[in-house]
């Protein structure tokens, strides 16, 4: 199987108050296409920073990041935003929907930034909402939806542009266990359709739903194991 994500000795450090703060130490990681991977670790371990770099929201200080055969190291801000647009769907703990837009409009956003005509945006957004079971609530605004429903809208937004990589940061962190289960069921279905999933979590129960668990501690990989069903 070809490697979809390849990290080579990736490091990230910040300068804070004149002090060098090393967040990630020489992380090397390969993720094959279609894998469902969990990254676990306590808060402060660097897992969120790792997700930001994988999601092209931040850039590494050192090391190489290859996504789908393309070396992203040193790409411009414009090129990185194109990668985000075409290849990556984000799911956040706090959903990150725009409160002033309804479900269809929120889901349409990635298509709008791809310059897709409005009528097609609407069709595809409605199809994505149908996929997550929220078609009849498509004209609701986020505040009119439950947490689980909001997260499903966010999933529809991650799916709508057919991004091959879905990055989820504590996707069930703000949900009750029942809604959380529904979301994880949906992840499993979507993964079965061939999308690569990378879920950041500190919850072992969430991690246990994936195929592989990578544990991070103080910016280094301390464990990398397959999940046996």
């Amino acid at each position, binding site marked *: 199987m070809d490697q979809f994500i390849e990290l080579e000795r990736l490091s990230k450090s910040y300068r804070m108050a004149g002090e060098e703060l090393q967040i990630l130490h020489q992380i090397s990681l390969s993720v094959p296409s279609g894998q469902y991977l969990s990254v676990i670790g306590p808060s402060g371990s660097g897992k969120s920073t790792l997700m930001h770099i994988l999601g092209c929201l*931040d850039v590494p200080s050192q090391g190489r990041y290859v996504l789908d055969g393309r070396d992203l190291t040193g790409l411009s801000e414009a090129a990185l935003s194109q990668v985000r*647009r075409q290849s990556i769907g984000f799911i956040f703990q706090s959903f*990150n929907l*725009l409160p*002033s837009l309804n479900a269809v409009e929120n889901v349409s956003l990635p298509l*709008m*930034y791809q*310059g897709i005509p409005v009528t097609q945006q609407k069709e595809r957004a409605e199809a994505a909402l149908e996929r997550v079971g929220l078609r009849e609530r498509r004209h609701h605004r986020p505040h009119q939806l439950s947490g689980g429903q909001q997260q499903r809208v966010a999933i529809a937004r991650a799916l709508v542009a057919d991004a091959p990589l879905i990055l989820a940061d504590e996707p069930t962190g703000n949900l009750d266990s029942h809604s959380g289960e529904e979301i994880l069921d949906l992840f499993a279905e979507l993964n079965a359709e061939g999308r690569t999933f990378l879920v950041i979590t500190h919850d072992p129960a969430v991690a246990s739903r994936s195929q592989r668990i990578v544990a991070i501690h103080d910016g280094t990989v301390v464990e990398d194991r397959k999940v046996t069903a």
Partner: protein
Amino acid sequence: MISQSIGVALRAVWEQKLRSILTMLGIIIGVGAVITLVTLGHGASSSVTKNIEGLGSNLLVVDVGTGVGESFGRLGGATTVSDTSLAPPPNLTLNEAQKLGNIARVVGVAPVVEGSGTLGVGTTTASVGLVGTTPAYQNIMNYKLQEGRFLTPLDETDGENVIVLRSTEAQTLFGAINPVGDTVTVNGVPFEVVGVLANKGTSLGQSEDSFAAIPIDRAESLLGSTSLSTVYLSAKSQSNVTAVISRLDQKLLSWIGTSQNFSVTAQSQILSTLTSVQNSLTLLLAGVAGISLIVGGIGIMNIMLVSVSERTREIGIRKAVGASRGAILGQFLIEALVLSGIGGLLGVGSGAAASVLLSKSFGYQPSFHTGIALLAFAFALAVGLVFGLWPANRAAGLRPVDALRVE
């Protein structure tokens, strides 16, 4: 995508209605003020121009008296020179004045002896400026007859006491009755009214001072004065005015000796001076109004900066789902342009309304200039663009990871 961005911007503006209106207020006032002031300025100039043209743009005024040539910008010539105490007073005789008519391209000469007089009919009296002059005065000063006739050459030779009134005084003294043929006393001496001049309407300068015209020799004996203070001349056409002025200057210099004691003014010069004063005044006012537009722009910048910091998270989300730097820049720029554009339109509307209302109340011809409206609107957009650029650039430059971290 542009139309969608405009939709997004309109929505953002609509969601903060009060804030948007307050932000736009600066632009509304600025644009409205520019349009109103320029329109009123134009109205004022054209009304002044019309009034002065009513006096005759070919009109030349020769004033004689001590120190007259030193003062500048006298409007017309009815003001009497008070400073006659210094000896010897400069003088121009009637004969000399008539000779000025021999200058090439001078088509009319009206020497004037002036003084004040009291008109009386029974117990009713009216104070007027008494103008002793010749028949040419009517045409040179552009007066229209309402009743009867003006002075004629015959009046100068037969020594009859005849007087021509102006409509206002005729009404004061005689009411609605046609006074022609009736008698009026002038400083106690009876005169026969032979004509009534129509009023010219409001105007600058002396033409609306109350006056009555009598033959020049009657005025000399009535006022006990033989010195001419003013001579009105008319040039053949406005293009001859400059040439005539220099000829007049030469001749008067040779008679009077010093240019300090006479002045030659052309109505058309006054007109062009006034027009340029009006224009620079209009420009000044428009400039002041333009400053309020810039202040309005700063208001937009302020609100856009607030908006950017309030919506940092939104910017982060938009960037995460693929918005490029340009898309975010465009979104906030369009929002600034929508604010200034709507403000500009409202400003054009209120400016047009204010122009028409104020023009009417000032009695000007209401004239709305589309060019000015377009210019003010374009300026408002430019202000929005310039002052929106910094906040928009700030939004676009946010790093997505930082923007997402903001709660």
